[in-house]
């Protein structure tokens, strides 16, 4: 359940900081690198993954959970099984953010971005592992889809956490529906017998692509 993070891609952290390819001075890069070192050293990312069969009506077998929204339904159309995933950087990430914040917003902004990159990396690695292990079964993995993407309601975060009993990795959902620690992810991935059409990587497949401040320029 505890996963080891060896590296946090700096480009990903820069992306979360709104970087668009302008020159970055050495000192700033060093600051980001230093934060990344601390995140790798001090946090203990945790992941929960569980495989479920899908019932005819789209409910996950043995659970009360049924993904809502056209987008996720479309993604899961060719699938008879899914993986549910919950991942978190853990309570220490919140504590680090609290500390850094009280010492100044400039450092906290960097740390926040590095941690966003870190949890993405944790999920990407996990996804890749699942994708490879499915190849041995001759099966294929769809994209990773989280509540809040497209028309899947954010409130389903809570349901995924309940099914996975995500409190076992210290991931909780507050009364107002936000995940704490903030640097956490829940997601669903479909398992298909035939290769699946994946979303264009980057921003093209996102319904917020026209308004999002984080939109990448590439492509």
């Amino acid at each position, binding site marked *: 359940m505890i996963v080891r993070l060896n590296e946090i891609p700096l480009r990903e952290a820069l992306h979360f*900081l709104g970087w668009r390819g302008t020159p970055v001075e050495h000192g700033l890069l060093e600051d980001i690198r230093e934060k990344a070192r601390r995140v790798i050293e001090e946090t203990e990312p945790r992941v929960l993954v569980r495989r479920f069969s899908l019932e005819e009506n789209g409910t996950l077998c043995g659970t009360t959970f049924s993904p809502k929204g056209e987008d996720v339904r479309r993604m899961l159309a060719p699938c008879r099984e899914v993986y549910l995933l919950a991942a978190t950087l853990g309570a220490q990430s919140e504590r680090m953010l*609290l500390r850094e914040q009280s010492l100044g917003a400039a450092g906290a902004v960097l740390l926040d971005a590095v941690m966003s990159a870190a949890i993405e990396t944790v999920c990407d690695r996990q996804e890749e592992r699942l994708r490879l292990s499915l190849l041995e079964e001759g099966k294929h993995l769809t994209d990773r889809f989280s509540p809040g993407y497209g028309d899947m309601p954010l409130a389903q975060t809570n349901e995924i956490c309940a099914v996975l009993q995500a409190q076992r990795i210290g991931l909780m959902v*507050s009364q*107002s529906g*936000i995940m*704490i620690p903030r640097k956490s992810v829940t997601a669903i991935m479909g398992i298909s017998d035939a290769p699946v059409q994946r979303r264009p990587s980057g921003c093209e497949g996102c319904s917020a692509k026209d308004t999002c401040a984080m939109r990448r320029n590439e492509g």
Partner: protein
Amino acid sequence: MEQRITLLDGAMGTMLQRAGLKLGDRPETLSMTAPDVVESIQRRYVQAGTRLLLANTFCANAHKLDGTGYSVDEVISASVSVARKACAGTEARVALDIGPIGELLEPLGTLSFEEAYALFAQMIRAGVKAGADAVFFETFSDLAEIRAGILAAKECCDLPVYASMTFEQSGRTFLGVRADAAAISLSALGVDALGVNCSLGPKEIAPILRDMRAVTDLPLILKPNAGLPDPATGAYNTTPQEFAAACADMTDLGAAYIGGCCGTTPDFIAALHDALEGKAARWEGARLSGVCSAREVCAFGKGVRVIGERINPTGKKRFQQALREDDMNYIVSQAIEQEDAGAQILDINVGLPGIDEPEMMRRVVTAVSGAVSLPLQIDSSNPAAIEAGLRAAPGKCLVNSVNATQASLDSVLPLVRKYGAAVVALTLGENGLPKTSQERFELAQKILAETEKYGIPRGDVAVDCLTLTVSAQQEQAAATLDALRRVRDELGLETVLGVSNISFGLPARTLVTQAFLMQAIACGLTMPIINPNQREMMDAVDACRVLSGEDASCAAYIERHAPSQTNGKREADKKDAADVTISEAISKGMKAEAAAIAGKMLETETPLDLVEKHLIPALDEVGERYEKQQIFLPQLMNAAAASGAAFDEVRRAIEKTGAKGEGKGPILLATVEGDIHDIGKNIVRTVLENYGFHVIDLGRDVPAERVVAAAEKHGAKLIGLSALMTTTVPNMEKTIAALRGSGLSAPVIVGGAVLTAEYARRIGADYYAKDAKQAADIAKAILG
């Protein structure tokens, strides 16, 4: 010590899932919908030997039951009665089972300690009404949360209270709580037994139980999983017999309440029953004297323990301002600084006229506990504030202080007893300040006798022999030192002394304070209250630790004082301030240089000119480059920080002329209730401050009422609200309505990832800012 072993039950969730419970459903509601299934599982446990059966109430709290259509009372009443039926015909008792609420408490999360308390109290009252025989807390990983539950149990019923937490192989919970700190803190609250459940198998739990045994005299609870789960299949790897044998080995650690957690079944309990036949729990144990937080233990009697004194408004303007403006960031930064400087306990004093001291104590203790690991000393003369601090602090605190007057003894010692705290005893009696060492000694004896009446362990009493100012009462320094020696030699107690008062009114104060500190340590002072940021003080402590042998092989001393390689380099890194202009220094984010240049410019320019002709244009230029995407966020922030350093120089210059150095405003900022995503708000704060505005930052998860109250109190000219999530934006609308409802007309500016200008208008905001630059532009337009 010896006690008969009580067999607990095994897993409930595992059994219910086998019986068809769906994941995502609330197992507790089965007591209503399928009572027979629950009863038959529980009966099998009782038949296997369970003598304290946990009712099916683990998550029967109002938050988790929300939406199920059942009330807490209904579910608990049904669950206790099902358990009762399962016990029928045996001597088995029924415990109300209480697990975590499922939300993270403040300051990392949004659930307040008192809300958690209320949720637990509701369960406990329902459990008492339903006829439960005991209250059993289990699977907690947050010390603050389980403390809220235990206090609720202690204050709402007379039933026995059992408390168990869940640890990882590292010996900590995933919130970082140490096993020994948990045992110290839970013992302090007066539970009947404490221990470990879930997460690990019996073999992995053994070392954790040993850590607990080392610091408590209470019987221990042992409820392991059926070994460790196979990562691929989720199946557990231990047989009932192996499990039982491993558990039986821990009876000589004092494991007296033994059962199973995830993966265990009635077969495991039956095996335990066989293995424990005729065995009793036997143990040697004593409570540790000392204090702890959730993450650090500070044992008394092992040498010098430094108490950091900086969280105290006395004589500190900046700190007073922080208290008046609710500026937790500043207060927490003071805590971090002291922790980094080597303090081992932090004194928390927030007494200031016009401040609601109990409420402020609660807030500061909560905020500080989230950011630093150190145990706390709750410092107040107001018993209500002391109690607020003791409730909020996760751990065992030191109370500063009780004195020898009857009024003080009667009001403070009951609190020390109730919360199981350690206490500082001030040698101050009905006749005021003592004159001689003998008087001090007698007052110490009197307090000690009183603490013994309350059953407060001797090892948790620390005597303060009072430091008086040597320039005013010169003979008193010797009296203090002599009393210290006698308290150590004749009473064997810990000692505390606020050291710096000694040199008040003298030149070169540090010299006198340092000499007094060293003499006092030599006379037996164990807990000096000092400013750990003052290098001379910590140097003296380091040296004393070497001389007393506390610092074995002088290792810590050598590490701290060996010549450093980096100092020279850091100096070389500093650029010559003359080479850059103020505008360059700001745009490149060079803080020190910006301050130095501003200082120099102020010799020839007025503060106003410096701001208007140099700082604001420089910031504007940076803002423009940000807007054109020539620079990105961190560069904007660094520039803001550099101009902030220059502004500090300006403020200092203005204050020198006697005028108030406060900027325009105030502007009130808050992240709305329910939301903890405050990074955007913090960016706005920094940028506004560095444009010279006076910003009052209420923090995150701020209820509408607090925004309204603060806006009224400070006469806010502009109010900024942030929210990140679609789920919390409605609270922004609520806050604006509350502001308007109370007749406040200050314009409201809103921001946040999911907001748009259109949406901002719809919820009644006056302005929408897409980023910090826009927020600053709006503030400039409104406030000039």
